[in-house]
């Protein structure tokens, strides 16, 4: 019997992997992908909850998250291209000119 807990646990694991990836990888593009993975994990939790509660709102939330993620990726990648043009790198550790 697959329960909500199964899905929530899977979601938590995926989220955790995404979070660790975000903190460990230095390639800005992969860092970005890790954010997408985390969003995706959250989406899974939403849809699972939606199924087990019999509510549609979870799916709608995922729908909105998807569109927002699309917008975010577009802008983020454009930023990255712009940064690459001037800095010639996508290493996040070399993009630290806002150091205090």
């Amino acid at each position, binding site marked *: 019997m697959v329960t909500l807990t199964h899905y929530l646990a899977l979601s938590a694991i995926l989220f955790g992997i995404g979070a660790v990836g975000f903190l460990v990888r*230095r390639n800005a593009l992969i860092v970005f992908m890790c954010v997408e993975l985390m969003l995706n994990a959250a989406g899974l939790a939403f849809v699972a909850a939606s199924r087990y509660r019999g509510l549609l709102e979870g799916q709608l939330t995922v729908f909105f998250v998807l569109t927002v993620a699309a917008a975010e990726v577009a802008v983020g990648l454009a930023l990255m291209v712009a940064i690459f043009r001037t800095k010639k790198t996508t290493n996040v550790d070399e993009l630290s000119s806002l*150091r*205090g």
Partner: protein
Amino acid sequence: MGALFEWSWLIIAFPLLGFLINLISTGQTRERTVGVVASMAAAASFGMSVLVFAALLARPPEARLVEVSLYRWAIVPPLTAEVGLRIDPLSTAMALIVTLVGTLIHVYSIGYMAGDPHIRRFFMFLNLFLASMLLLVLADNFLVLFVGWELVGLCSYLLIGFWFEVPYNAWAGRKAFIVNRIGDFGFTLGLLLLFWTFGTFRYGPIFEAVEHRAVEAGVVTLITLLLFAGVTGKSAQIPLYVWLPDAMAGPTPVSALIHAATMVTAGVYLIARAHPLFAMAPFVQGVVTLIGAVTALWAALIAVGQFDIKRVLAFSTISQLGYMVAAAGAGAVGAAIFHLGTHAFFKALLFLGAGSVIHALEHAHRHPGDPSPFDPNDMRRMGGLAQRMPLTFWTYGIGAAALAGLPPLAGFWSKDEILISLRGIGGWATLAYGLLLGAAFLTAFYMTRQVGMVFAGSPRSHAAAHAHESPAVMTVPLGIFAFFSVVAGWINAPGLGALSAWLEPEHPPVFHPEQALLATLIALAGIGAAWAIYRPQAWPEGVEDPLRPVLRGFFTALTRKLYVDELYDFLFVRPFEKVARGVAEVVEPYGIDGAVNGLARLVQSAAGRVRRWSSGYVRQYGLSVLIGAVLLMFYILWMLR
């Protein structure tokens, strides 16, 4: 017909719309357009007032009260603030006076202000002024009335200081505003007390409660006293009248508007409006009546010693307001509003006439290119203008005669009614009656003096000798006002009594021939006395004022406005300035600045250490967030354990 009342908010909306149109119009708009838009807005408001008035007139007298609820402003239990209009005889009468006078002044301003670089701002404020006053007048509760009251104060400040490039003008605007604030402070307290007592701001329930004696008389006494404090500010009564003479700093149409229609009448209107409250506090009624009467005499006295053509009129207004306040205080609301109306016409006439004179002198002075400093308001530099500006002279003469109370002009009837209403009461009212008779004499005196100095004799300056009549856009309103100054009194003449029937059907106006005779004699006496002193033949060459040798030191005191400004300066302004300087020199640099700087230094040193956390590494920030999230999660788990 009832549907018309639903649209009565248009009376306020039209000038507001004019204000908005001129606000959003570009700087390139032609000045003519600006003035026409503003005047049309005022005229539309007047038209709407007439319609509402007619609709109300069509109703039977006992049904002449319509309350229009417009908008629920705020609900903060127990306070429900609603914006509503009260259409009743008093408010429509006021609205008619305000919009009629206001419209004519707008039209006049097109000519008077022509060429001013900031004419758009001027007309915007003028429209806003009118809208605020109408809001004040038409409101159905004290709160909205207060909003209008304050807006009127703001507009007066803006307009008195309209030519703020001259420091004196800005100072005069500030003075008007601050003096009004003092009165408003009492007014605000009165409103709070009112709400505390009655639990509402709406006129209807409050007056009903008063009628049923549902509240203690003591509280009402306090409330009315506090409200009266506001009145002394706005309607320029002792002790807060000092701002009005300085309000002459504004353009002349503004003075006319302030004196005739929009600003100073607000106080009288408030007393009339809150009449049921005042009726319950006989002590306050006595105070109001006496203060009004004393103000009337006091201001009339000062007016005798003034040389500025507008300043004389300003003190005259204070004096006439004293009449109205005294009448309203004595419960003669009809008489007070009657005088308010007639006064609006002839005072507007006088101001616009004075404006016409000033306008002419200024142009005549500027024309030959005389570089010497020249005050076009100074009556000592005038004289002999009757031949050069006949229209202005004749209309001005009518206004002066109306103000002096010569029958059958407007001032005669309304002043008479006030005097009669005070006669039968006895006690303090008799005292007030006496004072007002004295004031009537002085009124006739100083008006004759002014007419004599300005129009009679030979010119006493180059500019006066070369003055010309003003353009039609200025003289036509003069003619209209002159017409009203003649006939406005007949509306309430004995036997007709239309205004009284309209405002208070139960009190028809009474006419005592002997009173009328007495008043006429007093006025003639005043005119005669003034003419004896100021006729051109009696005026030797080189003498500044023939009255000075007669009164000697006292005349100097009169020209210095009886030293009241100096007294206030000594009593309030100087000590306040000392305290302020003390605060500025001691408390601020050491107390406040010290605290702020110390805090800043603390933050600075702390930031120096904290900024090392801001490493610029995105991943490190992310790690901080994750650590925070983990800690939070475990905290929640621990709490739920």
